């Protein structure tokens, strides 16, 4: 039933046994229910052990888990009256970035997310969450509209990075990302970002230049993928595990470094094991963040957003 990761083998075996038992017809001899609950207890214990001490590389795999809830799943459950808006008005509609109007807890918002797609067809349609310039330009358009109507902006980040392709370069990938960051820093409305899966490089930064940046417990956020880093700095793609450690890309590390405001806890065994629980927690966290920002004047919001980033990593500046 699940897609198991390499390090989840013992869990997979136990859950396999539970599946088998459930398919047995009770002949009265064996108390199946008892046996199942005993095994389930073992599974939970194993999950707690495994997920209590995940390595950065294991977290990377969970962040990219095929069953992990994506941007559209959060939008489906958290945003009422979601009205997707398409296109950059210049070249194309880029489905790697989804966005539109909707209501969050009763109030109108603009929501923008990088979407990886859930199945093969969806992944191709959404280009695996790798946006082209038109995606970032659509995001700019939506943010500017939010600004005009004084709507808070929520961004959901889950991308391996911006798309590296000839067409993307021809249409100004770098400029589109730069402009998107610039737009984030011009807004006079609250901007809250949640790194829900993979926060990949400039493609993530483009949407995460926010007042509040939240991050899921097993999400990652990095300047480069561990694989890319390993192949460049170690000249050995096999060193991804080591690179993942060195890059300090886990939510825990990033909280310590002052890159994010808070970590949103995931259900035992990762967001994909209980998407509903995860979606509810993300909803709570966004509501909390927006509550704090909602009372602030537009100019103050913009100034604080800029100050937030100017402070990062600066020992001397306050």
């Amino acid at each position: 039933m699940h897609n198991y990761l390499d390090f989840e083998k013992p869990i997979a075996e136990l859950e396999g046994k539970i599946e088998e038992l459930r398919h047995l017809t009770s002949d009265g001899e064996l108390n199946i229910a008892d046996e199942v609950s005993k095994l389930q207890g073992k599974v939970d214990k194993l999950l707690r052990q495994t997920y209590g001490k995940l390595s950065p590389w294991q977290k990377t795999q969970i962040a990219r888990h095929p069953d992990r809830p994506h941007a559209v799943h959060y939008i489906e459950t958290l945003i009422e009256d979601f009205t997707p808006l398409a296109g950059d008005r210049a070249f194309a509609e880029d489905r790697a970035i989804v966005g539109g109007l909707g209501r969050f807890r009763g109030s109108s918002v603009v929501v923008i997310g990088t979407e990886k797609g859930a199945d093969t067809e969806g992944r191709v349609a959404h280009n695996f969450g790798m946006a082209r310039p038109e995606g970032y330009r659509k995001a700019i358009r939506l943010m500017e509209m939010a600004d005009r109507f004084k709507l808070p902006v929520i961004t959901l980040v889950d991308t391996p990075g911006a798309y590296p392709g000839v067409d993307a370069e021809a249409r100004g990938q770098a400029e589109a990302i730069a402009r998107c960051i610039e737009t984030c820093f011009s807004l006079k409305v609250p901007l809250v970002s949640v790194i829900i899966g993979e926060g990949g490089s400039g493609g993530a930064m483009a949407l995460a230049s926010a007042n509040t940046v939240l991050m899921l417990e097993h999400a990652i956020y990095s300047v480069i993928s561990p694989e890319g880093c390993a192949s460049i700095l170690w000249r050995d793609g096999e060193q991804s595990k080591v690179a993942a450690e060195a890059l300090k890309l886990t939510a825990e590390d990033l909280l310590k470094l002052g890159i994010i405001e808070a970590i949103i806890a995931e259900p035992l065994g990762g967001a994909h094991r209980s998407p509903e629980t995860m979606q509810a927690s993300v909803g709570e966290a966004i509501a909390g963040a927006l509550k704090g920002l909602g009372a602030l004047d537009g100019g103050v919001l913009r100034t604080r957003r800029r100050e937030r980033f100017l402070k990062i990593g600066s020992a001397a500046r306050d």
Partner: protein
Amino acid sequence: MNWLKNIVRPKLKQLVGGQKDIPDNLWQKCPNCAEMNFHRDLENNFQVCPHCGHHLRLSASDRLKMLFDEGEYQSIELMASEIDPLKFRDRRKYTDRLKEAKSKTGLEDALTVAHGRMGGINVVVAALDFSFMGGSMGVAVGEGLISAARLAIVQDAPLIVVPSSGGARMQEGILSLMQMARTTIAVEEVKDAGLPYIVVLTDPTTGGVSASFAMLGDVAIAETGAVIGFAGARVIEQTIREKLPEGFQRAEYLLDHGMVDMVVRRHDLRATLIRVIGLLINTSPAADVLAISASGRGSLEDES
């Protein structure tokens, strides 16, 4: 034997043979046309190959010298930032790489910030030096750009930025990524102050540097032949598994695709900048002259 050092070409040098007092680096092979160029010929030609016009990379100090009036400028001391925030180590320690880069270049980090006059106008210039860890952007570069922006605002001067960088400095992990946001804010401050922000894109301008401050210029000037783009050519080739188009990501390609305002030869760069800045800040000099004349304070000659 100065005569020999100065004009004997390498081939001849080989014929003469055994001249140990002629260091090899006096002659440099052009990476484009493979002709050998004498170092002084390159210096006198702004490091542009006299044979094919190929623009070699320029150090930050040479860049500043060629831009400011009489080559005179004051570089500002940049605030020391946290070194090696992640305690990063790949095959080597990041601190060792830094030490090596410092001793090789004599620089503290990849960015130099200077102010001085250009065509008589006070300007702030921030230039990246590719020879310092590929001009990569970490906390120090980010801090430097913020300082450059603040200096421009204090001096009410245009800011000119000259990137030459492969992108983010991976050894600073997420903190290098954050510089994309921080340098963008620096640019915003300059723009909010109503001051011109001019970018001179030089070889190479890629990755996190191109996707932030480098692509936000009021006017974007690309130097002839410079590689400018977001993703590296190798990464793109691996992704699409086909050969890249001729001239891909070169300055001229960006001009054709509407991504820069102009492509300028290094020899014309200073004059172009002076003209552009003059047009942006000295918006009606003729009107000033008229106002002065009308005020009855005498002729223009008397004014000086």
